[in-house]
């Protein structure tokens, strides 16, 4: 077990380094700090001095990998790669273009993200699994056929329409819930209803169909026939045998995303004005703030790798055949 964790961590490092190099190449190789500066200063006629000033201000006035002006270690450390890229490993995200510390912002904004994403995830998973089991229970009947067509229709609607439709219908016309906004704690609960609901509904088509296919595949296995031959009720066969075995592939898809819940949803947060990491990211993209985008890319990878490790651990927990070593 310990060996496994150590090996897994050793495996994670090159991946994070790869992500790091990729983003570095993208932001400092393909496009240069000069381009960035010009983009931000805007306008057609920009003086070289203005570009230099902007670069100094934001710490982009360094060479890429090697700084001959530095002394000793500084030859290597006083470079863009170390200052802007490698420091991410220490979770030192640096400052955004507006000068604010990105690390502090992330620490502050991840909680609102989680408050929306976690209930969406948990309630959604429950709903999708329940509907999928319901359809599988009635497989080869009209209920299943109609259900599947409905799911296909639901998955053919862009997520944006769910948000717009929900806001217009529930908030504007019927006025059941506020149209947007956020408040921490229990007092803000009514703000959560709409985003959570819409988050759930927008995933319903894809996920439910996926789970239904998983269940159907399990239902075709020989052990299901054995269970029926033992005289078990269809209910028991579905819940204990089919669900029990389908839990394994379901886990792969589900556990891996749990750490990423911290990142929140771009669309939901920006539409509902939730001050989480999703809206932070979207604002950064729209403001072309590369520092924040870089930080979020790194954070996303980190959380994904964490998710992979959690997936393996949960496998070992659910599947008796898996032993980690």
């Amino acid at each position, binding site marked *: 077990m310990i*060996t496994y964790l*150590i*090996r897994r961590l*050793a495996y994670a490092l090159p991946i994070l380094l790869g992500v790091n190099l990729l983003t570095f190449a993208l932001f400092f190789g393909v496009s240069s700090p000069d381009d960035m500066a010009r983009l931000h200063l805007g306008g057609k006629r920009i003086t070289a001095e203005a570009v230099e000033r902007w670069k100094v201000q934001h710490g982009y006035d360094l060479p890429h990998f090697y700084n001959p002006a530095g002394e000793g270690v500084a030859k290597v450390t006083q470079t863009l790669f170390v200052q802007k890229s490698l420091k991410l490993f220490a979770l030192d995200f640096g400052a955004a273009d507006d000068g604010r510390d990105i690390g502090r912002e992330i620490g502050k904004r991840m909680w609102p993200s989680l408050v929306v994403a976690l209930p969406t995830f948990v309630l959604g998973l429950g709903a999708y699994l329940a509907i999928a089991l319901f359809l599988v229970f009635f497989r*080869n009947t009209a209920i299943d056929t109609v259900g599947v067509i409905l799911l296909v229709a639901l998955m053919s609607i862009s997520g944006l329409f769910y948000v717009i439709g929900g806001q217009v219908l529930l908030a504007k016309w019927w006025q059941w819930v506020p149209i947007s906004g956020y408040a921490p704690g229990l007092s803000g609960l009514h703000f959560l209803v709409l985003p959570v609901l819409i988050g759930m509904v927008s995933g319903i088509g894809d996920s439910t169909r996926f789970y239904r296919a998983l269940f159907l595949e399990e239902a075709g*296995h*020989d*052990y299901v*026939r*054995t*269970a*029926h*031959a*033992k*005289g*078990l*009720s269809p209910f*028991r066969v579905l819940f*204990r*045998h089919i669900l*029990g*075995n389908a*839990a*394994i592939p379901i886990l792969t898809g589900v556990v891996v995303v749990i750490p990423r819940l911290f990142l929140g949803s771009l669309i939901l947060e920006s539409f509902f004005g939730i001050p989480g990491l999703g809206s932070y990211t979207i604002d950064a993209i729209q403001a072309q703030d590369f520092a924040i985008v870089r930080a979020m890319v790194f954070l996303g990878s980190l959380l994904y790798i964490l998710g992979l490790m959690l997936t393996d651990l949960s496998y070992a927990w*659910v*599947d*008796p*055949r898996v032993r980690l*070593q």
Partner: protein
Amino acid sequence: MLQLADLVVRLPDGRHAVDGVSLALEAGRCLVLLGESGCGKSLTALSLLRLLPEGVTIAGGQARLAEQDLFSLPERQMRGWRGGRLAMVFQEPMSSLNPVLTIAAQIEEALVAHGSSQTVASLLADVDLQPQHAQSYPFQLSGGQRQRALIAMMLAGEPEILIADEPTTALDVTVQAQILRLLRDLQAKRRMALLLITHDLGIAREMADTVAVLYAGQVVEEAPASALFACAARHPYTRALMQVTPSLGRRGQPLSSLPGSVPLAGAWPRGCRFAPRCGQVQPRCRELAPPLEHGVRCLFPLDQAVASPPSIAAQPLADATSAQGTPLLQVEDLCVHYPIRRGLWQRTADWVRAVDGVSLHLNRGETLALVGESGCGKSSLARALLRLQPQATVRGRIRLHGEEVLNLRGADLHAFRSRAQIVFQDPFSSLNPRMRVGDILEEGLQALRPEMGPGARRQQIERMLNRVGLDASAMPRYPHAFSGGQRQRLAIARALCVEPQLLILDEPTSALDVSVQAQVLALLRALQDEHGLAYLFITHNLPLVGYFADRVVVMQGGKIVEAGATEIVMAAPQHPYTQALLASAPG
């Protein structure tokens, strides 16, 4: 006790797979349903439990058990009878058990469902499993143990009728014998009726009180086992089945041939369904469908005592051991080891010794049987001989024609490949489904005989197709258009195209029906005589070895435990493992 009458099973496309089958089961007796693949035997069994695959339906008939018709019982009540009054054991013990539940949990569940007073422990004891197996998961058990566990589950509801669908087909011979013995003991102890489904005459002979022979969805003959196996089979099909089964006793004689293969469900000929393959066919047979009368469905049933008993004395095959000079193939101290990687750095911590110091030799024109159970290393050996083992460490010496095979590189290795070829077990996975037969056969020639022009290649392919009993019309077709037996012929033709001297036959007939097996064996024999081919015949089927091989080596755990001339080894085995293998062979 259970009376099945006129069962008709309909497939989703409307064809009938079972067409009017009637059977009678009696307490404490064993009825064997004997038939080749695709004759409808499994569907008959599943009908009794009403567990047919989706879309397949019971279109007619009755199954009376205790004055109730099983087929008109409400589903809720039927559920109580499933695993209660009737229980069923399946073919694949691995996939038939739930992989994520312990054995105890799966037995317990059946006990609860039927309110049984038995316990998990007592059931495990009944099937000779140890108490500690209760907490095991299926993957931790061997094949035989899994099948025992499955049987224990099915005994939970104290069934009156136990249906076993090819319960030992997926198991090794020695395990098969144990499971069959267990089934027989349980049947006697619990006074159950046993419906055993098999394709294996040996098993039928060993287990049956009564045998019903199924052909093309119908029972063609039903008779007490004692009478049937004392050479009193009256239907030409049953008689033929018995005569095409190879054994030591038939050594040196050609097996009587049963041409063609079992017709597909629904594609049955008019009149007698066996007529196209029947040796005694009369014009009337093709017109009139015969009824089942006096236990036989034939207009011209055979007399009871025509067939002569097979001669028991085994004779050495002609000039089998007379080959002189250096052997074609010499293997010395061959080891095939797979690394096991462990720990932080995934270093090789240990080796799986799949083949561990094997020495053997094979002469031109000779058949050497390599016998062993699953996991004994026989397939690893075969692949190593052909240099198809990139993942493993292969050590020792292999000499073909005096050439060191393990040292061959480049052009020499290429030349070697045309001298040694292989035919695989599964005729379905051995031909690429997306290539035309002509291209499949041409592939080897293109790779190994680049000097041949397209015309010469085509000639060679046609010659080989003709030789295996097919013709040039096969070339533009895809493999799916051919039956299992025809595909195996194609695989043989593919190997022979490059004119090898050594042919490795890796269980070449074990996926085929017995009637087709006889055809393939006859073809292999004839080809060997023509070309002086050397066969390394890998198999687990001992009667087949007795019939076909000149010499035999027995392999266990990567090592050869016994070697010698077939008739000597089969008659007087020295090693305990060989003795056990021979004792376990059914029939």
